[in-house]
């Protein structure tokens, strides 16, 4: 009991220190550091989102780039065409991505496993091709620029974008911890372990999946809007790039699927590896693939999962334990 509480305190302390450090970076860090952190965080956020879908709700999507792209283009339309303040448009991009995701869920939820995965990719490709084919409104293959960002001074723009990225990462993390601690979370963990069994004890499997799918799509849309708010230019190839799902999958597999801590560790490993592998360009993708395959073969639970199966560690208080009021001498343990 006390060991666990200590772990949760350590987790909370780590989270607070990290948060304080992150928020204060604009005051002391270089622009380069700030940009690196932004890049790190949106991969972390995308990984957390994918982990939530695949690791808990059993939806192995390889089409999350669809919502990244939709979020990016939604920002263009809202800010460039409708004249909204781009910063205030950000939450709306999430809503738009979720609205676009809803009809795709009607199709996808009829499919299982590999068929779900392939169909999710086909949907993403279809959206990319549609945007690519369009010539005027969305700029076709050449894309469009977010010139309206020019109204803000560069330092201010980068700081706000930075804080928004920190915010969305924290928000997706908090949302997930909160959801997992709730009744829905119990159902999700049960679905992760045995979906049919979960239905048998009353978990509304399909409804829960839909909630997760829409939340994940909306969050991915917001991340997409933020990515291209710093890039200032959106092209279909970049917005709907498979990298927006491939790297997050790598991060989750390395760190440990179905845990909150796993993707954080995975993202750190990914970031370090990428610094080294970047020089090898195309080969780096191959290397990531091989590392992921090796991990799946030899440590399928990932780094954090392997740690957890050896020691009973948990940094975020998600698991439920027998409340103290039931403890009798015969049931007291450790």
């Amino acid at each position: 009991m006390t060991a666990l509480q200590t772990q949760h305190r350590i987790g909370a302390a780590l989270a607070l220190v990290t948060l304080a450090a992150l928020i204060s970076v604009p005051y002391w860090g270089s622009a380069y550091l700030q940009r690196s952190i932004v890049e790190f965080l949106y991969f972390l956020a995308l990984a957390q989102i994918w982990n939530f879908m695949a690791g808990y709700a059993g939806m192995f999507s390889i089409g999350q780039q669809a919502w990244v792209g939709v979020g990016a283009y939604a920002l263009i339309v809202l800010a460039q065409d409708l004249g909204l303040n781009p910063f205030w448009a950000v939450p709306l991009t999430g809503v738009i991505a979720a609205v676009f995701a809803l009809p795709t869920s009607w199709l996808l939820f009829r499919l299982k496993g590999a068929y779900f995965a392939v169909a999710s990719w086909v949907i993403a490709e279809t959206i990319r091709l549609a945007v690519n084919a369009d010539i005027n409104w969305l700029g076709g293959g050449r894309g469009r620029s977010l010139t309206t960002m020019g109204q803000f001074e560069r330092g201010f723009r980068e700081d706000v974008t930075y804080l928004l990225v920190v915010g969305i990462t924290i928000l997706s993390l908090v949302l997930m911890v909160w959801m997992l601690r709730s009744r829905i979370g119990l159902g999700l963990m049960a679905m992760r372990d045995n979906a049919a069994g979960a239905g048998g004890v009353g978990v509304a499997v399909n409804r829960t999946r839909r909630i997760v799918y829409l939340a994940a799509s909306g969050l991915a849309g917001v991340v997409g809007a933020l990515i291209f708010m710093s890039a200032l230019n959106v092209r279909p190839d970049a917005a709907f790039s498979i990298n927006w799902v491939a790297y997050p999958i790598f991060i989750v597999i390395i760190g440990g699927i179905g845990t909150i801590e796993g993707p954080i560790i995975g993202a750190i490993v990914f970031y370090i590896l990428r610094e080294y592998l970047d020089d090898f360009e195309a080969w780096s993708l191959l290397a990531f693939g091989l590392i992921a395959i090796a991990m799946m073969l030899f440590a399928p639970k990932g780094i954090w999962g392997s740690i957890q199966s050896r020691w009973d560690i948990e940094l975020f208080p998600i698991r439920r334990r027998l409340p103290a009021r039931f403890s009798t001498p015969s049931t007291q343990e450790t």
Partner: protein
Amino acid sequence: MTQETSSARRGEPLLSVSGLCKRYGAVTVVSDVSFDLAAGEAIGVLGPNGAGKTTLLKMIGGTVAANAGTVTFQGQDLTRLSAEARCRAGLVRTNQVPAPFSLMTVWENALVAASHGGALSRRAAEDRAHEALLRTGLLDRHHSTAGGLSLMGRKRLELSRALACGPKALLLDEIAGGLSDYEVKELIDLIAQIRASGVAIIWIEHIVHALMSSVSRLIALDFGNKIADGAPRDVIESEAFRRAYFGDSIATAELA
């Protein structure tokens, strides 16, 4: 609200199964099975391996879709409803092959059932989960990971979870296999307690004496057909039942 309807419809069966059929390709696995289960009643289901017992129970529980027939529970037609909806309505089934939530603890397994199947708020769900584990004797292992339990432990977990859902009718599929004589006796006591608390039971079991001492009625299946239905003694001694088990030395020895 459903409770009011059910008490208002006194005299009507709690569960009514009518004309259930299941075919896999050209093979008919369950063929036109009908019966009623009264509130608080306990029915045992017997039949050789492959007779279609599990399939019948799955159709009642909603995990297998019937090709024909209806399932009526508390006056409501559930035939088109999913297993999760039936579970929340109080019709709960255990799995013959346990389906534990392997990475979760025994406690969390019971808690999922109580909070979803039982649709209870946090504290009430904890109370219910605690009570279920206490009854099945798994409380001592509340901290164990469900995937690490023995087969018997997993079967007991199935029962705990089903109880935590707060069932009105409990569909049990071979929960006694592999138990010692003493444990079977404990299980019989537990079933009696569950019945006494007003829960109706359908229990598939190959251990005939356990069934005989727990149920007031037996149904025998063979090749998907209901071949006997009635008081346990009458069913066991019926011509049709003996023919179905002809050559099955264990059953005949036990009956002699």
